[in-house]
């Protein structure tokens, strides 16, 4: 990638956890202002915006698609839509809501293109870092145990219906409220809440059963 500055290499982006903490403290108005600044042609504003939301968006897409290659494509497609729609962007809602709405729509379009996707498809091991927060999380775990927990979590997540998984991942990765999730997914707030409740219950049950089995 000749001709790219160091800011384009991604090396300046903060660690996802650090970025996540920073996002929580960032006002959404600031995100909107950054988007408007980018629409006026300020590249630095886009870089800031991108660094804030790239990790959360990527995790959402990876766990939705369960394939890093597909997630990479979807990730680029989402940001392409952000770039294309920069002129028409109006800060009516949080930028994060706008971003994850685009992501949700991109994934829906992807599913429509594929028509159907076999449940429990291969899960990329590159993102095998999530752990289940259990009551005994203070207990030291070996890497093997953590990997096993992650596998079970992914498997349970994969068994969720698409709508429930969508709502759950939006809640987990985007930090959106239920009202905002409902807006992103195009359903009512109660519907979104119900889907989220089912998703959490199924995950807990699946993990508990597997833990019992093991």
């Amino acid at each position: 990638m000749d001709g790219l500055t160091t800011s384009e290499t991604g090396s300046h982006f903060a660690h996802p956890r650090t970025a996540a903490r920073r996002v929580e403290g960032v006002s959404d108005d600031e995100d909107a202002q950054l988007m408007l600044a980018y629409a006026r042609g300020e590249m630095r504003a886009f870089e800031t915006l991108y660094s804030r939301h790239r990790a959360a968006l990527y995790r959402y897409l990876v766990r939705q698609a369960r394939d890093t290659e597909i997630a990479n494509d979807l990730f680029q497609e989402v940001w392409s839509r952000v770039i294309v729609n920069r002129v028409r962007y109006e800060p009516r809602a949080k930028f994060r809501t706008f971003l994850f709405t685009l992501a949700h729509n991109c994934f829906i379009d992807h599913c429509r293109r594929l028509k159907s996707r076999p449940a429990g498809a291969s899960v990329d091991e590159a993102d095998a870092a999530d752990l289940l927060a259990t009551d005994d999380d203070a207990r030291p775990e070996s890497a093997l145990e953590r990997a096993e927990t992650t596998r079970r979590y992914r498997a349970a997540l994969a068994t969720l219906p698409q709508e429930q998984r969508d709502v759950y991942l939006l809640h987990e990765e985007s930090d959106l409220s239920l009202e905002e999730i409902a807006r992103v997914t195009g359903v009512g707030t109660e519907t979104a809440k119900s889907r989220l409740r089912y998703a959490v219950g199924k995950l807990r049950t699946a993990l508990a059963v597997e833990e019992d089995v093991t």
Partner: protein
Amino acid sequence: MSGRDDEFDDFLARRRKLFRRPEDDVLEPPHEVDRIVLRQAREAIESRTDEREIRGMAWGAPLALAASLLVAFTIILNVGMTKKQQPLAAVTVEQVAQRRDYPPAPQVNIPMAGNPASQAPRADSAAAPPAIADRSAAPLVAENEADRHAPPPPAAPQAAPHRSAGAADAVTAGENASTVIVAGSPPSEAERAVAKGSGSAAWRRDGASWLAEIQRLRAEGKNAEADAEMAEYKRQHKAYAGSPDR
């Protein structure tokens, strides 16, 4: 079940996480993807700038073309109007000598203090309406044969000069070369002859010939015609009439 509901409410309120990621969570887009996205973003705003420039040029080109066409049209129109207003040709003697009828003007009788006769209304002037005749009322030179045989215009009888002896005093002091105010009886035969022949006599074109013709008329005893010709000659040749030796 209520315990799970409480857990779920805590989960919703983010007071308690059911699942958490470890500190070493490294799930993030590859750097290559970052580069692609950032490059796309940069190219988008750069192309946007180019589009604005191109759009400005695309908007300015028709405007410049329209302005050029407007200026060219204006110049062409102006040149055409100027050509129409130019004179047809140089003025020739024949054109100057052409008969021209002027509209009649009201008679103005200026009472003269030293001439009581002029103050009294004249019977003949009351009987015959005043007429205005210019010096070309009797055409001097015919332009061609068609003019020569053409019937006189309707205004010709009124415009014909009346130079009877009684009407001589009616000529105002302000008589000039173009307008003569005449009141009186119809013109004499000699004057009619002059008027009739004025348009056809070739010798009138030359002053010397005209004077020779007048002398010939006097020699033949046609004094009336000679006087009329002389008067007409004087009227045509004001320098001759106004010279101190005359």
